[in-house]
């Protein structure tokens, strides 16, 4: 309760400052800086310009159903309770967002819906992580412990994020053309199977390509030792592929329109296809690619306001709505929280809350190879 008072009074104070001409100073700076170019039009919109003051918290995430669910179940109630406005932004991909953050001013971005532990590690390595006061996020205790521990491991025991959802990148196949038996037998090798030449696709992401190349060459994805063999598998896959896809929308349309019969795929997207009646099978091969997403708080953000917002976002009602919207299970522990009817049917869902069946990427290993492998893949992808 006292926390609420704090934030509310801070908001009042910030608003006063805003009214008292702090805005003019900013506009003035802008005037000098852009030689008056930005001034005339920026003033009416200047309220968007400084999201980092405590009257606002900036959140960036995926658009569409996800952002609608957040708005309805977390942002609006949060604003109603604290008076702090949530400025909602979107991105089309994690890489693009990171470049924007890199080119931003400290404090401009606050909370982001990031994917993967390696993303977390990347932000941490770039000095963008903060330290959460976990006492301010009571809902954190409902989160699956294994998911939290992975993040703690990266940032030395402290957290700069809360886990939010998880899923897998497994294998999707059109059951009209590829039987379940064939999939069981071939597993990841279906993607380098000459018989399906021209009907195969893959994600244009170097991590996924190398992960599956490891599976195809019988290696442990988290300690690939024979790199050359792995790259050869990536090349073989390229030569048999019709297309590299770059988004869930593309993945779904490729499968639904029968352009391709087999690809690796995001679990939630395949569930969405199945929901609409498409006869697409999904399987996680042994050592399939598990991943989790988190809500990351950037360095320089108003911590208490962010922590309270995270608590709203972790509330079961919000978590379930977002999970049902994007078809990825929530990070909340099913043994502690009732997750409703739909979530237990989602692929990759683990009713025990231990996630022992999933293999996650080892951030040290993958980030250590990032610079070299992302570049090599850029070339291999284009036929070199």
């Amino acid at each position: 309760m006292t926390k609420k008072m704090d934030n509310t009074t801070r908001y009042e104070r910030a608003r006063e400052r805003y009214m008292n001409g702090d805005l003019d100073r900013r506009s003035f700076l802008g005037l000098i800086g852009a030689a008056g170019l930005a001034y005339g039009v920026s003033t009416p919109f200047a309220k968007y310009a400084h999201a980092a003051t405590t009257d606002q918290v900036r959140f960036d995430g995926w658009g569409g159903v996800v952002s609608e669910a957040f708005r309805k179940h977390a942002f609006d109630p949060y604003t109603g309770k604290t008076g702090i406005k949530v400025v909602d932004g979107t991105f089309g991909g994690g890489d693009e967002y990171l470049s924007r953050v890199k080119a931003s001013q400290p404090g401009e971005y606050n909370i982001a819906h990031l994917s993967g532990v390696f993303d977390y590690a990347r932000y941490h390595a770039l000095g963008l992580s903060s330290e959460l006061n976990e006492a301010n996020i009571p809902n954190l205790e409902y989160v699956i412990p294994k998911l939290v521990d992975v993040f703690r491991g990266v940032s030395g025991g402290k957290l700069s994020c809360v886990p939010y959802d998880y899923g897998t990148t497994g294998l999707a196949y059109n059951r009209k053309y590829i039987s379940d038996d064939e999939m069981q037998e071939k597993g990841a090798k279906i993607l380098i199977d000459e018989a399906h030449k021209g009907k195969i696709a893959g994600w244009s992401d170097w991590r996924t390509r190398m992960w599956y190349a490891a599976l195809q060459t019988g290696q442990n994805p988290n300690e690939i030792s024979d790199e050359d063999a792995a790259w050869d598998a990536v090349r073989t896959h390229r030569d048999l592929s019709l297309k590299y896809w770059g988004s869930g929308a593309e993945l779904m349309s490729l499968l639904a329109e029968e352009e391709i019969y087999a690809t690796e795929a995001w679990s939630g997207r395949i569930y969405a296809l199945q929901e609409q009646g498409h006869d697409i099978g999904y399987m996680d091969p042994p050592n399939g690619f598990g991943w989790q997403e988190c809500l990351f708080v950037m360095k320089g953000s108003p911590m208490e306001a962010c922590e309270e917002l995270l608590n709203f976002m972790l509330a079961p009602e919000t978590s379930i709505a977002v999970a049902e919207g994007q078809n990825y299970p929530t990070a909340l522990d099913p043994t502690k929280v009732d997750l409703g009817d739909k979530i237990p049917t989602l692929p990759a869902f683990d009713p025990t809350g231990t996630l022992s069946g999933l293999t996650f990427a080892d951030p040290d290993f993958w980030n250590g190879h990032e610079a070299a492998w992302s570049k090599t893949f850029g070339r291999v992808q284009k036929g070199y």
Partner: protein
Amino acid sequence: MSVEKREARQPWILLSPALTAVTLLLFVPLLFILVYSFWLRTATGADVAGFYLDNWQEALTDPFYRDILISTLRIAAITTVACAVMGYPSAYFIARSQGNKAVLLLLLMLPFWISYIIRTMSWINILGVSGALNSALMALGIISEPIQMLYNEVTVILGLVHFLLPFMILNIFVSLDGIDTNLENAANSLGATKWQAFLQVTLPLSLPGLAAGGLLCFVLGAGTYITPLVLGGPRDAMFANLVFEAIITQLNWPLGSALSLMLLAVLGALVMIYNRYLGMAQLMKGLG
């Protein structure tokens, strides 16, 4: 004297807003990019400031970049020619039609109301194996199995032509529309056939528009990255994809900066040539 002085100052007054905007928002920022191109990206992802020639050496000597640059210029050239061939008669039709030209032009821009990504992806609904064209051909009994038409260089060019054709047509139209039709009639009355009159009067006079349209198509075609991503197969990347990957995917801004300056230099050289050519066209008109 003072009138002449004023005369000499006037163009600069007219030019100053545009030049100021381009200087502040393009050239000064580009200086940052130039500086960046001499920095280095470390394995951890941080950039090291300094004066390193590594990025430039890589960009200029690695055959990978050269090959893709050449294939990008080739695709842009094919696209430009296709746009000219498809666009000129259409522009001529609009300029000489009795109907309402404004409506015809606006109709041409109609596809732009549908977002670029959606427009590009809609070719999948048209040319895909379960797309409109294949189902129509199968319904007519012309083919029994759907044909794989998507995800190759042809579809990339198709997507680019669809994107760029309106620019070509509008530029040619604007030129054609400015030509006095009496000139053609006069040529006719002097005994020239319609075709001769067109070749000797209309076509030369419309060349500035054709050239402007061609330049736009070429430059924009060479700078796209979304079309090859959506409509291309695994090997159909263009140079802007490399820039995008370096900057966004690999977060290697120094290398990305060097690559983009390289593309800028090549395209800039082409524009210089174009400007010289346009200058000549102007001269010819002055004589005629």
